[in-house]
């Protein structure tokens, strides 16, 4: 099993990047359709980071964000986390619910707003997983998404804690979504469990 991510070769990293690319490409399309807006994404970054450095990826541990998190079980278990700044998330809710622009109050979200965010997360994450499943021929069974609205660091450490027992580093496939090429809409993370990397890579014929 891969515990030490530094063992990965350049080619394997390229393949992981491609997986991130396919998954987030599909998720970006789903988001664009939901919002009826042009969503750009960068080439996904494959980062192998100590836990302490992960919050910096999204703009610091203090940043107020909405986190949508789900666990995919199956032959290659992984976690998926979609983080977006609270103000952006509220605009998405406005759009989804057909409310006036800026109407959703981040400090006072209604049950309906929560449901809308959950649904948004569900669609984006499921699209990502679907693309992954088609590409790897593996089955990924998503859990019901969980929703957290708070400091980015707080949300990340709740997610990262489950990797803490086996690793000091986490492999993160990160994609940045942008609207109209500038405004950051969100960050997408795929966090494969250590044993899952072997399964994913083997399914694509590049086993370790």
């Amino acid at each position, binding site marked *: 099993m891969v515990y030490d991510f530094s063992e990965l070769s350049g080619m394997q990293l390229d393949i992981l990047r491609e997986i991130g690319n396919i998954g987030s490409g599909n998720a970006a399309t789903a988001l664009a359709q939901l919002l009826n807006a042009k969503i750009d994404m960068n080439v996904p970054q494959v980062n192998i980071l100590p836990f302490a450095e992960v919050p910096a990826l999204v703009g610091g541990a203090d940043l107020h964000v909405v986190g949508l998190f789900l666990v995919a079980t199956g032959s290659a278990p992984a976690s998926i986390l979609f983080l977006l700044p609270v103000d952006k998330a509220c605009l998405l809710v406005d759009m989804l619910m057909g409310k006036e622009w800026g109407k959703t109050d981040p400090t006072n979200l209604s049950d309906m707003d929560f449901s809308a965010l959950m649904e948004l997360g569900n669609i984006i994450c499921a699209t990502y997983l679907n693309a992954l499943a088609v590409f790897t021929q593996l089955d990924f069974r998503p859990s019901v998404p969980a929703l957290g609205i*708070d*400091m980015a*660091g707080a*949300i990340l450490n*709740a997610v990262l*804690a*489950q990797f803490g*027992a086996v690793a000091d580093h986490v492999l993160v496939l990160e994609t940045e979504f942008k609207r109209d090429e500038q405004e950051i809409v969100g960050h997408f993370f795929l966090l494969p469990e250590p044993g899952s990397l072997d399964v994913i890579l083997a399914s694509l014929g590049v086993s370790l």
Partner: protein
Amino acid sequence: MSKIIQVGMADYKMATAPDKLITAGLGSCIGICLYDKVIKLGSLTHIMLPSSSQAKNASNEAKFADTGIKLAIREMEKNGAQASRLLAKIAGGAQMFKFSGESDIMKIGERNSVAVKENLQLHRIKLLSSDTGGNYGRTIIFDPETGDLLVKTIGHGERII
């Protein structure tokens, strides 16, 4: 000039007054502040998990409640603190996600705070105050000069414990 020293996730740092220690975005993790008020030496350990005993990789002591507290005591003693004078304040251990269904990871915050309290007791360190639980994140700043622990949140106020 006083500094504010950053402590990351699964990290440990020490500071002498007037310097302060900060850790941002505690979720299910817990920030354990120990201090010796005679020499105004403080430490902040940002633990992620309750116990190193179930871990496949326990090389980073600051990651676990049990080894994190031992590490802090050992390092502080090296710098002139006396274990018998150490006092503790803790914050964090929240449950960050609204979840339907049950999952172990959702209870990590609670397990962390139980483990931290048990380990403090084991080392006979008095827990002066704590701010744990809830479903929100915390940023904490610890001042070894006064022993004040400032807890900041989003939407759940600010307090000194």
